[in-house]
């Protein structure tokens, strides 16, 4: 792009930058506006999650998984619980399965709202961010009623749940969904089809499908590039096969397939899908006791398991090796944001300064999950 090449200056989009979604440093080589090379530097938020897990029993690992991806803590718990249950081949009553699906889909809504809001902020639109956070507040209130906490829930346990739905909770969820559905096309009106927004995001940071697969990118970023891959459908866990929902895929309506706008729009469509799932799950909610299958002492048999679930950012994989003791021998968490950030170096070089941040925002990374 740039014809005039002065000597390259390295610039640190440093750990304390307003739009790096956490503590991330981008070491950037640039000669003015055009950025020729981006190298993300991570590790500022490393809390040795995996070393902790080797000294803590299976029940006590759950508050740690919350703190990895603190924006979608329910999905983390869910992924971990499903992995350990497969290790112990423990079967969970139906009501627990339904509640788990409802709760993690609600958390997916909250996480997407945050992702789209901050993406709007990176591109400069300030108001949609506040609209989205106003609605996210409602979901957090619901979670607060359910398990006391707004962000780090420690709600889904291995083998069941910590609390059951309080009386009248289902109606509240339905009220929220009825309120929330029309808001979506309000966001579309103010941001998605806004000419300047389209100009800023179409054809920016295009991520071709093979590059995405080779970089292990998953979730909305991969679906934005046109690959129809969603763990809830392709490698079903829990009871997702009982619900019918389709998987939105980037089609390049505005720019080319796989640009920032596609990734943004895939998340927007995914929200409508999640609403569909929640409605079906609430309608089909059976009765039963959620504490029934909670094992007294979790001692999985020797062996290892690698289980993947669909978190709002992509494939959240848990590799757990147990040696029969109540403490995991080795626990590795494959974080989707980690792979999404690794592709940053590839697709963000050659763009302008403000585009690099727009691409970063569209990848929707969470540093807690990257640095573990």
């Amino acid at each position: 792009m740039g014809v005039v090449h002065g000597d390259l200056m390295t610039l640190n989009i440093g750990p304390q930058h307003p739009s790096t979604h956490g503590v991330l440093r981008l070491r950037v080589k640039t000669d003015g506006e055009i950025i020729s090379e981006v190298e993300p530097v991570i590790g500022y938020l490393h809390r040795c999650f995996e070393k902790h897990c080797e000294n803590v029993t299976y029940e006590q690992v759950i508050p740690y998984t919350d703190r990895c991806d603190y924006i979608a803590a329910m999905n983390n718990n869910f992924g971990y619980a499903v992995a350990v249950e497969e290790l112990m081949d423990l079967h969970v009553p139906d009501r627990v399965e339904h509640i788990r699906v409802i709760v993690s889909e609600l958390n997916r809504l909250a996480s997407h709202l945050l992702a789209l809001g901050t993406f709007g902020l990176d591109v400069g639109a300030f108001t949609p961010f506040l609209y989205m956070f106003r609605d996210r507040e409602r979901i957090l209130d619901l979670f607060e009623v359910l398990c006391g906490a707004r962000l780090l829930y420690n709600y889904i346990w291995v083998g069941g749940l910590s609390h059951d739905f309080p009386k009248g909770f289902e109606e509240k969820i339905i009220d929220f969904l009825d309120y929330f559905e029309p808001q979506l096309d309000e966001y579309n009106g103010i941001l998605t089809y806004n000419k300047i927004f389209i100009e800023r995001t179409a054809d920016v940071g295009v991520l071709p499908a093979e590059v995405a697969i080779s970089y292990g990118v998953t979730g909305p970023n991969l679906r934005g590039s046109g690959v129809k891959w969603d763990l809830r459908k392709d490698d079903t866990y829990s009871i997702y096969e009982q619900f019918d929902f389709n998987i939105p895929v980037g089609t390049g309506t505005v720019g080319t397939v796989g640009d920032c706008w596609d990734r943004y729009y895939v998340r927007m469509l995914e929200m409508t899908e999640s609403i569909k799932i929640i409605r079906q799950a609430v309608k089909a909610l059976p009765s039963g006791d959620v504490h029934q299958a909670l094992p007294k002492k979790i001692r999985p048999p020797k062996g290892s398991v690698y289980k993947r679930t669909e978190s709002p950012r992509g494939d959240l994989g848990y590799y757990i090796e147990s040696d029969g003791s109540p403490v995991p021998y080795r626990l590795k968490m494959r974080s989707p944001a980690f792979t999404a950030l690794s592709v940053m170096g590839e697709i963000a070089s050659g763009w302008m300064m403000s585009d690099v941040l727009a691409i970063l925002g569209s990848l929707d990374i969470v540093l807690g999950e990257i640095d573990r």
Partner: protein
Amino acid sequence: MSDEQAKLIQEAVAKALAGDMDMINNIEDRVTRSKAKAALVKAKREAKKSSATESEKPTSAPPVKPSAGDEKLSFIDEVVAKALAGDMDAINNIEDRITRSKAKAALVKAKREAKKAAVTSEETPQVESIPAEKSLNQKVAEAIEKKFPSSLTGDDVDGHIQLKGDDWFNIAHYLKDNPDFLFDSLQCITGFDLGLENDLEVRYNLHSMTHNHAIEIRIQTDRKNPKIPSVEQVWRIGDWFERETYDMYGIIFEGHRNMTRILLPDDWEGWPLLKDYEAQETYHGIVVPKVKEGWE
């Protein structure tokens, strides 16, 4: 212990085994008498064990517990066997409370084993009924064996495939390009420390987007200088996963273009996830563990 004392003890034990206990009882020196008694008990136990082995019951009787008197154990076995056959009163009318509870526990254990045996027996027929479709792992293992002889180490292939590290790079290429495998996405690389002295292991979870099937490949390297060929060129995500495994385990991936730490600061000593890792006291003068008085 002088030798005549030893002789005296052996003699006393021999007599006691034959049933005449008073020889042992009237050894006046307290120490030798207790030694003799100990020797007697040991002798008895050997005798018991030798007799117990040939009388091993065909049914999955509860394993012989060395506790309590030996004859009591065989009594429990019979009672449990009877209870298994359905006649419960044998157990109920054991008057001595301890043995009755032991018998009941043994019964429960026996039942559970019986159930488990039944469950596995149901499963196994399914697998045998479709022998034609060999599991994916076997197919991959055979393919690798054909192309790269002597690179498979482990034989048990159902859970994972154990490989030797040396030509892992072209195996990886082969796995990626082979039309009926097409493992185009490397899901996760997990470093693994098998134990304090034995070696390190790296586990690759591969997945194919088109065929939607997945396998796990494990490669072991020794602990002193762990070296594994890098697959960074094959799957681009390998770059960061390998750097993280290096960061945590110290496994050096040859051929990796930028083998540096990714999460920890570059000048951090030690590999944190090894089992024998001690955190360094201070890092650039900052005391690592948080000091807090009024606690501990």
